[in-house]
């Protein structure tokens, strides 16, 4: 076989990992072997947390809807029940954003929902 030098292949591979771990603490952003482990953990967390982010966001919307409706004296559970009964199909994301951006529109929705009780 002809002689094969490995060249810079390994260096490029390690540089890629170190590029990913920029900003990590101490050895984890400087030394490849520590950085490799750190990177693997980080990618694993990222995978899981991409799914968690959606759950967390919905949780936030529900809390914000709860706060917004309690200002008017009705809680989230009853509000959602009335929404379903009134066939209003707005989702929690939209309701939470409305409560922040257009409180008058949120009040209109509450009117619609309470009226259909």
């Amino acid at each position, binding site marked *: 076989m002809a002689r094969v030098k490995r060249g810079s292949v390994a260096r490029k591979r390690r540089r890629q990992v170190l590029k990913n771990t920029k900003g990590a603490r101490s050895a984890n952003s400087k030394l490849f072997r520590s950085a490799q482990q750190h990177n693997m953990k980080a990618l694993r967390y990222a995978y899981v947390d991409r799914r968690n982010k959606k759950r967390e966001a919905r949780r936030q919307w529900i809390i914000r809807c709860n706060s917004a409706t309690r200002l008017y004296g009705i809680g989230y559970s*009853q509000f959602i029940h009335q929404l379903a009964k009134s066939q209003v199909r707005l989702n929690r994301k939209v309701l939470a954003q409305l409560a922040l951006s257009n409180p008058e529109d949120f009040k209109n929705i509450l009117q619609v929902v309470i009226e259909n009780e």
Partner: protein
Amino acid sequence: MAMAHRVVARSKASTHRHAAVAKSCVVRPKGTGVTTRPARGLDFACRATVAGGEVKWVGNRRKLDLNRKYYPKKEDVDTQKKVWYIVDAEGKTLGRLATMVSMYLRGKHLPTFSPSMDTGGYVVVINADKVAVSGKKETDKMYYYHRVHRPGTMKTETLSELRQRVPERIVERAVKGMLPKGRLGNTLFTHLKVYAGPEHPHEAQKPVDITSLIDKKPKEADLAAVRAAVGLE
């Protein structure tokens, strides 16, 4: 305003109201070449105060991107803009009082709530020495103190004894247990000001009285009151 879902109008009597909602919730169908972003920036209200039961929106108006999760802006967490509340603890049940206080400290009474930021207000509690407990808790509720790494140094104290010694601590401990534990929780706890008597040094902050809101659980909502609040009657 681009919305993810369409409002389905059901009742004929309130068609105009549904139309108003539907108009503001118009759905842009795909493929029409219309952008799903709103044409103009949307305003948003920074904070709502409940002053005497009235819902008041105050704060700066800003653009809000509907497609991004809302994260509190500087106005929401600015200490100078925080609302001060006052609660009179005289005769109030300890736990029910503490629940409400911790909610207002944390900012969970506002739609700008975020668990990682301090969007709550300051709460002043007066007459904390006259806070009430039910049942036999006055003589039977125990407070435990222990020095870590020193065996045999546990001290116990009943609620009545603590009331003689440091009455503010009763309310403080109750509220602290209901706040999140951690750096943010510690900061929130510093926003709680408890005083044993009716006097307090925070008159300059003009605290809003929220004593009447204790025990106001909208679990079985008083729909007549909600209708009034929402402006249906």
